[in-house]
């Protein structure tokens, strides 16, 4: 099967390369990214993988277009997905607590488990075996050979509305690091710098005024109950842009993970303060409905928000600061458990803890170089992730990147303290 897919992919890629018919209506492009990573912990491990992205769009007429993006992830030097965790880390503890290795593979530890816990564990094992993590195809956390259609949609233009139908990127929210209002494109929690994943949806936008719109989206599941749907009203006031949204969130993935249906109302804004400092924020109030609950019951409602600023100095130095409050998170790392890990994986929250502070500092120098430092601090368990990066534009279409993931924490039981440091070298060529 793998070979057939690889063959198919090569055929498609070759066809694209050979296709010289590119004109004003047809555009083909993409990139090949090759990455080598070195994990610095215990048995030192080196991994190598490549990501090939093929992008194509065709303007059928001024009334419509089609667009497709295909991704192929190839693991040149595979590694155990759990190599990224230190012994005793929060993830390691969850696995140790609930699973055991047997001759038949991995199975749940049956002692001291409540029926609910046992049910969840069996479900998660089913999810692994069903290929749920095929979604996280870009991730170095689950490296494997994967072919994914990231986008495939038809876009129709009407006089005052646009309809996009198919797998697509939906960009809700104004936050740079966190987007609590975006329930559509789930981000891989193990890859904070990575892209979001496309979602299958019907997306209808009505436009009015100069830059105002009313957006209605429905993302179907395998049955009507597993459908996400909602709307967003977006407009401007002076130098500020703002929006209000309301969604009903339930999907096949959420059902598999045992996550409850929820209704979320949200709002976001972006603008500037002090004559030039970028200022943004978004907030979401969610009301989940667990089994046996009515939707009108609000005992389990929780709040999430993020707010931040960014500024570019005349020297070119760029700084960004962002705070994220996660009402579902824990402020004691001892409470990180399987349920929290499941919510994180399901995209219901963007971290295990309650509070996060992120900062980005970036500086371009010597024409072709940019150095960037991304910091993500969890003040609840006093741990942080530092992601320094040096990027060099070797050629207009070839970028070379050297970056590192440095995790610090007072113990390996903290969120970031349990992750293994790594250094990566990455070359990306665009065509």
């Amino acid at each position, binding site marked *: 099967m793998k070979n057939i897919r690889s063959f198919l992919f090569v055929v498609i890629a070759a066809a694209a390369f050979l296709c010289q018919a590119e004109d004003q209506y047809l555009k083909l492009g993409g990139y090949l990214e090759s990455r080598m990573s070195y994990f610095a912990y215990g048995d030192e491990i080196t991994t190598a993988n490549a990501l090939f992205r093929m992008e194509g769009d065709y303007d059928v007429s001024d009334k419509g277009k089609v667009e497709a993006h295909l991704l192929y992830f190839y693991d040149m030097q595979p590694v155990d997905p759990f190599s990224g965790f230190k012994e005793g880390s929060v993830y390691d503890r969850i696995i140790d607590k609930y699973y055991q290795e047997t001759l038949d593979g991995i199975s749940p530890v049956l002692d001291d488990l409540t029926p609910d816990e046992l049910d969840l564990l069996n479900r998660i094992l089913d999810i692994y075996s069903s290929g749920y993590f095929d979604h996280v195809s870009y991730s170095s956390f689950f490296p494997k050979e994967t072919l994914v259609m990231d986008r495939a949609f038809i876009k129709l233009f009407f006089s005052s509305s646009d309809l996009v139908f198919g797998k697509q990127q*939906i960009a809700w929210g104004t936050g740079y690091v966190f987007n609590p209002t975006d329930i559509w494109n789930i981000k891989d929690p193990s890859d904070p710098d990575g*892209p979001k994943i496309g979602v299958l949806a019907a997306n209808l936008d009505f436009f009015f005024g100069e830059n105002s719109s009313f957006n209605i989206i429905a993302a179907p599941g395998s049955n009507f109950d597993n459908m996400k749907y909602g709307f967003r009203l977006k407009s401007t006031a002076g130098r500020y842009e703002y929006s209000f949204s309301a969604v009903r969130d339930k999907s096949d993935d959420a059902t598999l993970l045992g996550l409850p249906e929820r209704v979320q109302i949200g709002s976001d804004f972006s603008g500037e303060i002090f*004559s030039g400092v970028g200022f943004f924020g978004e907030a979401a109030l969610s009301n989940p409905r667990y089994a046996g609950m009515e939707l009108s019951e609000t005992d389990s409602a929780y709040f999430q928000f993020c707010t931040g600023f960014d500024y570019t100095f005349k020297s070119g130095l760029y700084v960004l600061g962002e705070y994220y409050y996660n009402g579902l998170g824990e402020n004691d790392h001892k409470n990180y458990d399987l349920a929290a890990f499941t919510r994180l994986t399901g995209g219901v929250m963007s971290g295990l803890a309650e509070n996060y502070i992120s900062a980005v500092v970036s500086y*371009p120098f010597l024409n072709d170089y940019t150095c960037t430092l991304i910091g993500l601090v969890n003040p609840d368990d006093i741990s942080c992730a530092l992601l320094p990066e040096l990027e060099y534009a070797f050629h207009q279409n070839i970028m070379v990147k050297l970056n590192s993931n440095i995790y610090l924490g007072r113990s390996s039981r903290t969120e970031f303290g349990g992750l293994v440091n790594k250094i990566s070298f990455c070359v990306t060529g665009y065509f």
Partner: protein
Amino acid sequence: MKQIFYLLLIFSFCYPLTVDEILDKSESNDNFMTSVSSNIEEVHNSDGTVKVSEMKAFSKNGSEKTLMEYTEPKRIRGMKILMLNKGDDIWFYSNRTNRIRKIASHQKNQSANSSDFSYDDMSISDNRKDYIYSLAGEENYNGSGCYKIEFKAKEESVTYSRFVIWIDRSNYLALGGEFFDEDGKLWKKLEVREIKKIGKYWTAGEIEMKNIQRDSRTVIKTKEIKFDTGLPDDMFTERGLRK
């Protein structure tokens, strides 16, 4: 009575234009309904390397609204910049993330696509609002008789502490400029070349911005330009960015 009328008429021809009148006339060169152009941008770095980008630019109501789309290199193909209100409001669209972000003022003084032009330079924002300006005399600039107009920043937040532009006395086109940093040191030099009249409008075939401090220069060449062909209004909206 007749003599007084003739005297007034002669006097009106001899009366020097005010700096506002010169700037008004210069800005009226941009009074086309629409323009569509294909441009090549060459960035000549100090180490001798040259980076070439290509872009399409669509403008409406005398550059009050402008939409730019990069077509080369492949790395940035499909990226778009929308400038409204003469560049006061700028949006940036990335086709890979399908995300539109409004650029806050602090980013306007940053280099556009690693060139020597800032976003502010690429828009035609109303400098009279942010600078105190005066006519500093008349001079020959590259062989043409020009008005020399000096602008001094009212506040530190703007890109340049001061700048000088030379406006051709015959057609009121800006032929060049010198731009100074916050320490008053010469930062950039602008030169406009290959001026020709296309239909009713004077236009430049080549614009060069030299960064004196970085020892680099960027040349924007117009490959093709068409005026008044008509463009839909919704092209200059967020909807237009995603089309």
